[in-house]
């Protein structure tokens, strides 16, 4: 059994010559919950579509469950072991909830009737209700039911909680976490909700302009990264940006904010050498990591 469920190497995709993904490398271990972050247009949906075989890569390699996905047959085989929740949560308008469940169930021998009943009950979804008559939140719930009840080894999700109220969001996040813990299901979800990612993810992959910026265990990242706040008497010196171990520098007035993750103590010592009035070392939040990496200096 391969321990890396999603692996991409040098994955690139261009649309009419314009690059959307540039040599993306991903490695998502089995049983992890990985938050896939990035700004709008960073390449998140493109990556998910490439993993699902809806798009063909311009270059690079995709491996799902340890198998190379380079043909329709291999993509179909991989899709029998995963579930996808799209951002728009659109289902067939000519079916009812019950018909949609029966239809989807037919493709997955590993379908879990117990989970189907559990989520139907939890979400209060009436089987006989037509899909067009469902609210967006209910459509989201139905789509999540279809994803979670099929016994998939991997859940690919694009903004899975959009359209849900906070209480339901909490229940969904809990259900996803339970699935990962109890069944070893891998969850890979693209989201803009950093608080949700921070709440349930053990891994984070941040991409910007089609490239991986951060990929790692969330707790490790939080313990590695530090924010160093420096206040100077005048304008912060330019040479700060050249310090080794510094990821990003932001200047505002007489203040410089450094994000460092390698040898933080050495960075602090060097910064002190520039004569700041005060130096403060703070832990970072996921939000800060995100903003620093996608905004740059």
């Amino acid at each position, binding site marked *: 059994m391969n321990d890396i469920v999603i692996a991409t190497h040098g994955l690139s995709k261009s649309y009419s010559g314009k690059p959307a993904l540039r040599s993306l490398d991903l490695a998502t271990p089995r049983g992890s919950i990985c938050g896939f972050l990035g700004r709008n247009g960073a390449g998140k949906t493109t990556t998910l579509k490439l993993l699902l075989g809806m798009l063909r890569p311009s270059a690079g390699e995709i491996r799902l469950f340890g198998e190379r996905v380079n043909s329709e047959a291999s993509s179909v085989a991989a899709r029998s072991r995963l579930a996808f929740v799209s951002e728009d949560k659109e289902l067939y308008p000519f079916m009812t909830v019950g018909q949609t469940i029966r239809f989807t169930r037919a493709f997955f021998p590993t379908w879990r009737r117990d989970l189907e009943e559990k989520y139907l009950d939890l979400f209060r979804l009436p089987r006989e209700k037509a899909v067009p008559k469902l609210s*967006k939140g209910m459509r989201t719930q139905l789509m999540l039911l279809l994803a979670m009840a099929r016994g998939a080894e991997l859940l690919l999700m694009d903004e899975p909680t959009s359209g849900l109220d906070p209480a339901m969001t909490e229940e969904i996040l809990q259900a996803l976490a339970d699935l990962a813990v109890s069944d070893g299901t891998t969850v890979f979800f693209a989201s803009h909700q950093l608080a949700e990612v921070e709440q349930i993810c053990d891994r984070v992959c941040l991409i910007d302009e089609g490239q991986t910026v951060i990929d790692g265990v969330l707790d490790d990242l939080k313990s590695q990264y530090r924010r160093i706040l420096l206040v100077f008497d005048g304008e912060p010196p330019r040479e700060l940006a050249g310090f080794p171990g510094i990821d990003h520098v932001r200047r505002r007035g007489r203040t410089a904010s450094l994000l460092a993750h390698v040898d933080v103590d050495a960075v602090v010592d060097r910064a002190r050498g520039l004569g700041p009035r005060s130096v403060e070392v703070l832990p970072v939040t996921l939000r800060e990591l995100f903003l620093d990496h996608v905004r740059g200096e």
Partner: protein
Amino acid sequence: MLWYKAWLETRWRFVFVIGSMMLVWLTPLWLPGAAPPERLWLGLQLGWVLLYIFAAVFLAGAGINTQTMYAATPGFHGSMLFTLSLPVSRRRLLFVRAGLGAIETCVFVAIMAGFALFQGPGATSALQALLYGTRAIVCTLPVYALSVLLACVLDEMWQFMGAGLCWSAVFLLQSRSVVVSRISPLRGMSLVSYPVTAPMPWAPIVASVVFAGVFLYASVLVLQRREY
């Protein structure tokens, strides 16, 4: 289950074309003495060919090709990503959807063709009715297959317009070009061009089979190469 989905997806279209057919059937009852029976019969036959085309184009719509993201309206369309995430090849998706639409088209044409012969003036044997029904079905298939191909690259409105444009062009060309006239599926399905007592028009029949095969093969190629 794909067949079940295809049926749910197309059943109202099928009901609609059958309803259209009923209207055409009832027309002579509404127009007693409005025109000499022969003229009325001729008009109805022309109308039938148009109905064959309409049914073939209409029943080829829907399916994964029109479930586009950009056309997403709440509760309508936009389910393409869900379909494509299922463990089913695109070829199978196309064959099931096109297969069911083709069956519905054939049922429609067979009923129309059978009724045409019962309703028409003069006696018609069961064999003649069967032969006409068969050629009407075969000659409708390229119309259907072209619509399937158009549905792979265009959204539904443009698919209708594209099909209308193509078959209008064939209709015009068949009166100007001997070659087109000989192989035109529209002439093959028409009782005006080939009355029920005429020998089987093999040229349009063979051409229809070839065109239908080419259009369907092109549809598979387009669908397999298309990115979503």
